[in-house]
């Protein structure tokens, strides 16, 4: 019963919190650029609107195009259920840890890229090609940084990694963790389609990556795709804040502990969002072929993190 409740709670949290986070980032970014910007809760209204709208589906699209939104939504939610959000014990931690999370996100991306190719539009193909390229180049840095933390924790289970982070052996200023955090922050920017890698606010198809891939989606399919993108962003940000700053995470399943933990989580996520906003406002978009340089910096940071475990065991 508790397990069921934990899953339910986390599901609600994932579905409800994700659009707010995207909204806040948009709002703050506008503020920093001296614009009024959309209200933070605008993404909820957008989602409701998309869900009500009629759809236009391309005449060339096949069942892959129709299957993808649901598959993407479910695989992203599953990945979210493996991530410790408010309780150190993730509801589905038994079914998979860091590797399964990466795998599930990759599964969603795989189908989204196929759906980009499906309607026979050059924009979609371009988006798919670029998305798969960038995620491939980001992958080694992501995995190596996570491995460095996993080796310290002795497990790839995210709950175990968080538990180890709460233990006395954890040093926040451990060089390995700082370097791994830096690497993962760069990967976060790439994986969630943020500046300087991709511009989420662009209206020019040729500069799009993620947006070009989903150009043909409309109506309720678009709602699912957008929602999945913001849930994915929430999951990756939670990965950064909870594994590296496990302050306030509930170890017991009491309402009080969970409440405190939720407040902490929100505070940490907003702080990380602020960092993302600062990076997005102060950086221009990189040329596509400069992005691998940025991501190889992330990989080198992760490698340094690994080697610093030799120096500072």
């Amino acid at each position, binding site marked *: 019963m508790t397990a069921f409740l934990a899953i339910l709670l986390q599901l609600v949290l994932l579905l409800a919190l994700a659009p707010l986070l995207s909204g806040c980032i948009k709002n703050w970014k506008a503020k920093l650029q001296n614009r009024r910007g959309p209200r933070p809760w605008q993404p909820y209204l957008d989602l409701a609107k998309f869900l*009500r709208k009629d759809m236009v589906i391309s005449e*060339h699209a096949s069942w892959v195009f129709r299957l993808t939104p649901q598959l993407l939504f*479910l695989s992203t939610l599953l990945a979210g259920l493996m991530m410790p959000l408010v309780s150190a014990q993730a509801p589905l931690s038994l079914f998979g840890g860091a590797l399964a999370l990466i795998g599930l996100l990759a599964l969603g991306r*795989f189908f989204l890229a196929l759906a980009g190719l499906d309607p026979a*539009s050059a924009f979609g193909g371009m988006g798919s090609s670029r998305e798969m*390229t960038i995620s491939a180049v980001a992958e080694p840095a992501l995995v190596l940084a996570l491995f460095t933390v996993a080796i310290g924790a002795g497990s790839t289970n995210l709950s175990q990694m968080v538990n180890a982070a709460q233990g006395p052996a954890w040093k926040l200023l451990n060089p390995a963790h700082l370097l791994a955090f830096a690497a993962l922050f760069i990967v976060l920017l790439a994986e969630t389609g943020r500046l300087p890698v991709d511009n989420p606010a662009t209206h020019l198809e040729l500069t799009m990556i993620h947006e070009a891939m989903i150009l043909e989606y409309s*109506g*309720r399919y678009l709602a699912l795709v957008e929602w999945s993108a913001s849930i994915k962003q929430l999951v990756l940000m939670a990965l950064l804040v909870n594994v590296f700053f496990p302050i306030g995470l509930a170890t017991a399943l009491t309402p009080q502990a969970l409440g405190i933990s939720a407040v902490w989580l929100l505070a940490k996520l907003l702080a990380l969002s602020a960092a993302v906003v600062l990076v997005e406002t102060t950086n221009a978009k990189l040329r596509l072929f400069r992005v691998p340089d940025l991501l190889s910096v992330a990989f080198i940071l992760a490698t340094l993190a690994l080697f610093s475990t030799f120096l500072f065991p």
Partner: protein
Amino acid sequence: MDLLSASPFLELTLGLYVVGAVGGLAAGRQPSAANVIASGCAALAGVFGILASINVLTGGSGQSPVSFELWSTGVPYLRPSVRLDALAAFFVLIVSFVGLSLSLFSVGYLRSFYGRKNVGLLGAMYNLLLLATTLVFVASNAFFFLVAWEIMALTAYGLVSFEHEKPEARNAGVLYFVMSHIGTGCLILGFLLLFRTTQDYSFESFRTLGQTMSSGERNAAFLLFLVGFGVKAGIVPLHIWLPEAHPVAPSHISALLSGVLIKTGIYGMTRVFFDFLGAPPNWWGVTLLTIGTISALLGVLYALMEHDLKRLLAYHSIENIGIILMGLGASLMFLHSHHPVLAALALIAGLYHTMNHAIFKALLFLGAGAVLHATHTRNMEEMGGLVRRMPRTAVLFLIGAVAISALPPLNGFVSEWLTYQSLLQGFGTTGSLVRAMFPLSGAMLALTGALAAACFVKAFGITFLAQPRSEAAAQAKEVSLSMLAGMGLLAGACIFLGLCPTTFLKVLDPVTQQFTGEQLSAALTVKEGFVLGNTQALGGTVSTLGMVLTALCLLPIPAVLWLCFGRRSSARIGPTWDCGLLGLTPHMEYTATGFSKPIRMIFKALFRPRREVQREYDYSPYFAKTLRFESHIEEAFVSRIYRPLNRGILRLSRRMRALQAGSIQAYLIYIFVTLVLLLLFAL
């Protein structure tokens, strides 16, 4: 189950392959009869092969393996002795299961050869190849092993150049022939080296080599066998024959070559390195792990550059052999550092991936064969839109694509998860800097996996989705039921091995028991087999079945959302957004070459792409009348190593030609000088 019954099953299997080969040849005049006889015998033999190997693998550890002699020869050393131990049984399981599926497929597939080629000969060679491959796995005498090995290599040569009217098939056949024999040469030298110590060719005598052989000789043997088996497995840089030879054969043969035949290299390495050569020094494992990592990465990078569907799949075989070798290499390193449980885990990871790769690669090659059958081209740039015209083939190919991209919940994910787990735990086994290799090769494995996903988005997306790019693709028809059944069997195995790993792991227990003394299936099973663990109490766990079931439970969420909000909304079919132009044509679609362009640019130091653009224009280069674009990539290994080597050999041969002047007196002098030298040497 009674272990003794494995022996008649094995005899039946071998016998049926012989019957299939002879029957196919005999019925050569009637293609349909030859097809039924050859495919039927091979399928039946596959069933019996599965029964024989399952019998051994589930028979428990107490019993001794099946071993007998096929017939008795009076010749010393050359004894056709056969031994079906756990490792052999595991590989026989692979060849039998894949063979069964391929035979189902070939019933329908061979129809396109009627009246065009000798179907009886093809069926006979197919059976002979299966027979030789099975014999390679069960032979327990070096002499007999090499005979089977050569029959296998020669039959494969015949099948690669089966469509010999095409020059590419002839060239690929010769290249395969030469490379394969370089490998066999190394194997012969290696076995002779072992023979020096044991004075016997039986595998039984080799098992005690570890104590008696000097370490220098063992290292030499390791290198000889690494090259010998490495050529067959297609490790980088000995792989150059593989992407040439595998695609040009008929498709079910390609599936057999890529799915099973290269595994004879893996079998040989496991047999020699784990079974014969005794306690491994550390550098053996390090070498295998390094070669594995490099092969995996380069294999997938070159695969991405291909737009020939079957060549693309062939390059992926190099990648997957690399992943398998990562498991085997890590296992050798753990054996060196006396961590038998970890060694067993890494060995399981490698062997699980061996099984998985055999299955999904065979599935993908059959899918490519079905597409080739329907469109008569291997060029992806001329395909597209096949998901509507060949819906069942598309689903089956997609299952294979998801599996090979190591995405959950299919089998590729499970074996790569096990590889990651063994690499991660390996970090704690040693204090030296070598341990950094484990996470670093893990990161490279991640890059490989992500690139493979990109490659299969391309392979599936360009081939099956969007608008047809040619008339042939627009006219394509779904393939016959027998071809679908062959692919369906393999796709089912992908799903089973993905969702029920703990059930399958029991099969590997006798193998790990044989080489590491550990049985891990119980330790890897958590929660009554529902969840796969990594042998450690707080270590990572994964449950692909759990993921699927949870996803099914979450399925109502989108449905409820649509019911709440979108009851009145409708969907209508419309044209794709075309920027206000007059409709999209297939020429405007993204191409396979375009899709992989970013990767080509990022790794251009490796690929060194050569491009040529020719414009013809009347007044201004901005208004070209015709435009010709040519882009070409040559493998660095071919242009930097093999071509200079080739030139060197030719130059040397030209010099040597002076010796062969055609004068009999000169030849007599050569013989005389040789004789004197030999006599001096003997004294």
